[in-house]
């Protein structure tokens, strides 16, 4: 088997995985996680975007619809929300000092964060970066 065949097989494999994840996302939507189920979810999903929010936080209500919209665009990434008031353990573990904060996880590790609300296009650049890492890094 030569290199080009291996590369084609790799591409086909990742496409199948992406399709499966896409199907899964259509059912799941943006999930709400808490102190109890957060770790298990992060361990079992490769790329995760976590929106730390609270009901009383006005900018959080600006950010959430943008992330929801992006979740439909980047279906290979899992988009979840954590209510910081109800999940203080997870919030303090990741030093969530102000809301909203968005954390990016790759293979269980936090690799990037956004504090506050940024324009849609800027958030998308960061998510696209995570997406590339997810599928194209060795």
């Amino acid at each position: 088997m030569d290199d080009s065949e291996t590369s084609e097989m790799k591409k086909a494999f990742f496409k199948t995985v992406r399709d499966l994840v896409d199907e899964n996302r259509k059912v799941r939507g943006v999930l709400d996680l808490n102190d109890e189920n957060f770790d298990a979810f992060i361990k079992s999903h490769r790329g995760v975007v976590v929106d730390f929010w609270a009901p009383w936080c006005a900018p959080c209500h600006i950010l959430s619809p943008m992330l929801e919209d992006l979740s439909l665009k980047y279906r290979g990434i899992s988009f979840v929300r954590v209510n910081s008031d109800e999940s203080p353990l997870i919030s303090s573990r990741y030093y969530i000092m102000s809301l909203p904060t968005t954390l990016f996880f790759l293979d269980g590790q936090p690799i990037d964060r956004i504090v506050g609300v940024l324009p849609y296009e800027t958030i998308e650049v960061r998510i696209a970066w995570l997406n590339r890492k997810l599928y194209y890094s060795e």
Partner: protein
Amino acid sequence: MAKQKALLFGISALSYGYFMKCRLKFLNYLLSNAFRGVVENRCFQNASYAWLAVLKMEEIREEFNELKGGVFSLPLVEKTNAKLVNVPLVASKDVRVQISKNDYRKEIGIVKEKILGAIDEGPVIAGLMALENTRENVCDVSGAIDKMLFDVLKHVDEFIVFSPYGMPRKGKFEPYGVFLSTRPRPHEHETIKLWEIGKIFFEMANA
């Protein structure tokens, strides 16, 4: 002593979600420079009920069929002697703007004109339904509201701009609305309830 130019302005279905999406310049300016909060209303996703809670300044627990004594006997209206503009509880043509549901520009124009015409006389309580009746051109309607707010708020001393619920979602409205004001929200780490808005305006109008 000159009367306080205080405005309580309820815009049904205005949502923080539109602020960035529709690039609403003035509302984003207010978000950064005025006191802000989030209105939480899971029970009364109907403009009349929501306004009743605001004007009664107390939690509404039961259904109402008709207002005994009329809207002008409701505590907030009675105690502030505020002028009503397009408040959904009132059927009177003097108060409601009678237009077709799709004519948002006309509703916004008339409400703006009536607020500006009344604000020098004392407190004004106004409502706008244009966004609630919109499903498609949300950003156009939001943009027109944004411009109207800029034109109106520069003529008032104190204001509360709120929405009793947010954007339409899955056949209902999202339970979170907007609160922007010259007065802070009552509890820093809690959402604002509808009757609390009435109380804040009462203090504002009687300052």
